[in-house]
């Protein structure tokens, strides 16, 4: 179903599985990108169809979020089920970041986005939207205590107002109210936190979502003024998928006619709606441990691949001249000189453009392996350089072959010298795995964000995640120190 649910990784098994996954996923055909034979309701009866893959963030309650049991739930999730059911296709939900959600659709990572995306002319140039499946609007919220002064957007001139990054509200504010200082955030949780921190005078969000979130988080924020504008929410698909679009429209029309849409709306927004949800401690622990298992699995797989690559690269670098050395040098410099975050996004969104659709985990392992190889090859090179050329001469004089000389004499010494900096690189690269949440890998940071989106306790959960990383990295740092001390004892002098 969702990414997270689709990977039954337990922390223990995650180590081994992550590596296997990276390979398996790399070889997996891009199911999401396969053109469907016919997606209209007529074809709906056929079994064995490719699943309908639908993207949403999983962090937008009550439209999409993880419920007490860690299962995806919400209005958008229910709509997705209803649409897939009417299309006669199995539903596969991809939980992904809002930032890249359109790019993911365009690169064929999924068939459609059922994630409360407003229909705008800009977006409609890139994708085709279905008919709207609900209508909401942009609402300014302020602290209850400020309600008297800040009675509408006009009163917020010169004041900081929070909006979601890349959301319609940001564009609206910049266009219609440039006098208001727009501050962009990746999630409402962060906005709430900065409302508490007094960094914001107010925030703009969806009327329905905002009211729900304010109540869930137990904050004293109230709507101020009228709706800023109305938004029609649709389902985007790629422009080259007209049959799919027609199928979705037919499904939506049927939901409307049968009254199912209204029932779902009542379920999530009606007066009789459920009490806002929290998350049980057991679920929190399960999600965090599963996420950390993936974190460690990705780290271990990437580091192992990176290290194996770093040895020959470091040897070539150590040669110090020649075309091969210049090429490796250019590669290493480029990788080390560019942000891993950009590399991740480049691989994840760029690879499908050249016909290779990688799963998020495979993209993460690929990127981090390359990054690890670049950093570690530099360390391997300096390790090799620290070995006196005379060691090689002496080994050859004793009749060892070139290969034996490297394996038995040069490498063991280089490796010992390289050990402490290698361990430090392991620590640094393990921390880099926190970045892979941006390409929707369900590692620990992303799991924490999901938890935070329903518990509204960012500080607490980010602290826990920091602690989890620290528990893993601290012994490594200690080990690096100990290895270094032993090296000095053994007289590995590097001049």
């Amino acid at each position, binding site marked *: 179903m969702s990414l997270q649910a689709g990977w039954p990784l337990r922390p223990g098994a995650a180590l081994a599985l992550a590596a296997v996954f990276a390979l398996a996923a790399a070889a997996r055909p891009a199911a999401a990108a396969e053109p469907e034979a016919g997606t209209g309701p007529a074809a709906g009866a056929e079994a064995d169809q490719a699943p309908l893959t639908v993207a949403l963030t999983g962090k937008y309650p009550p439209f999409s979020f993880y419920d007490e049991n860690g299962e995806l739930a919400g209005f958008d999730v229910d709509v997705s089920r209803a649409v897939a059911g009417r299309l006669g296709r199995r539903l596969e939900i991809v939980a992904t970041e809002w930032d890249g959600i359109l790019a993911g659709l365009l690169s064929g990572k999924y068939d459609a986005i059922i994630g409360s995306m407003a229909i705008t002319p800009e977006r409609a140039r890139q994708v085709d939207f279905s008919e709207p499946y609900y209508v909401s609007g942009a609402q300014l919220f302020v602290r209850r205590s400020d309600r008297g002064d800040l009675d509408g957007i006009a009163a917020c001139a010169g004041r900081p107002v929070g909006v979601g990054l890349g959301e319609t509200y940001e564009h609206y504010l910049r266009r219609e109210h440039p006098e208001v200082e727009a501050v962009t955030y990746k999630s409402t949780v962060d906005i709430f936190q900065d409302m508490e921190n007094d960094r914001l005078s107010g925030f703009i969000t969806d009327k329905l979502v905002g009211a729900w979130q304010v109540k869930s988080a137990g904050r004293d924020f109230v709507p101020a003024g009228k709706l800023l504008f109305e938004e029609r929410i649709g389902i985007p698909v790629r422009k080259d998928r007209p049959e799919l679009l027609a199928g979705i429209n037919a499904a939506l029309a049927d939901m409307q006619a049968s009254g199912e849409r209204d029932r779902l709306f009542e379920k999530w927004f009606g007066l009789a709606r459920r009490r806002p949800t929290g998350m049980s401690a057991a679920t929190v622990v399960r999600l965090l441990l599963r996420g950390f298992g993936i974190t460690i699995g990705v780290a271990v797989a990437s580091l192992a691949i990176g290290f194996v690559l770093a040895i020959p690269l470091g040897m070539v670098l150590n040669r110090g001249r020649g075309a091969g050395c210049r090429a490796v040098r250019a590669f290493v410099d480029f990788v080390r000189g560019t942000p891993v975050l950009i590399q991740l996004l480049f691989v994840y969104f760029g690879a499908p453009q050249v016909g290779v659709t990688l799963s998020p985990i495979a993209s993460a392992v690929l990127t981090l392996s390359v990054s690890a190889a670049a950093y570690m090859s530099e360390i391997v090179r300096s390790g090799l350089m620290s070995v006196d050329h005379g060691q090689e*001469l002496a080994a050859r004089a004793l*009749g060892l072959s070139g290969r034996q000389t490297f394996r038995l*004499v040069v490498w063991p010494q280089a490796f010992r010298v390289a050990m402490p900096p290698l361990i430090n690189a392991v620590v640094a690269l393990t921390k880099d795995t926190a970045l892979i949440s941006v390409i929707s890998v369900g590692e620990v940071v992303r799991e924490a964000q999901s938890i935070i989106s329903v518990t509204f306790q960012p500080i607490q959960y980010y602290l826990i995640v920091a602690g989890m990383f620290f528990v893993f990295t601290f012994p490594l740092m200690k080990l690096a120190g100990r290895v270094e001390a032993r090296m000095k004892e053994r007289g590995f002098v590097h001049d």
Partner: protein
Amino acid sequence: MIEVTGLSHAYGDGTEALRDVNVVFPRGTISAVLGESGSGKTTLLMALGRFLRVPHGRISYDETDLNDVPEAELRRKIGVVFQKLYLFPHLTVLENLALAMVHAQGRPRKEAEAAALDMLERLGIRATAESYPVRLSGGQAQRAAIARGLLLRPDYMLLDEPTSALDANTTDEFAAWLGELRSDTNFIIVTHDVLFARKVAEMGVYLSGGTVAARGPIEEIIRNVRAGRVVGEPAS
């Protein structure tokens, strides 16, 4: 027998290290290559060990051109102990000694280690077997390095400035046990230390400015050196 004929060598920067060197190292004697620093001694040693390709002249090993001797055979026949010894710091003394016996000569590890321990015993440093090289004194390290070479049973053994790390007492001690080892191999000792050479070697060659200034029995060379007949003699 090792025979050097018309050997010349210049380094990349044009410095002439050796010019028309002719010398013979017969079996059954300890030979010394003498000379001040910069006289070309070490260059000659590197050429004899084929760590240096010399374009001019010829080195023959038992009548065969050194360049035609297969690498494996060459390393089995001619051992080298460099001035800096280059014991492997990541291995214990015992492991240092056994490494090439096991990996280059394919001898069983047990047998190799037994031979290594025997050799350490003979050289009086058995107690260092499990130590790492960093723990050894200059004299112990010197013995360990020579033991490592001797265990491969080379026909010739080149030693580069073996006394450079030793004080006067250990130098005498070293000279004494080198004499005891002479039945194992044919030593060619490169040294600037004339007194040491006199204690251990019978035959010698004196290099000056890259050319042979004197050759023959060691006593004769030393007399010439003392008389100033060879020191600083300009290359002809």
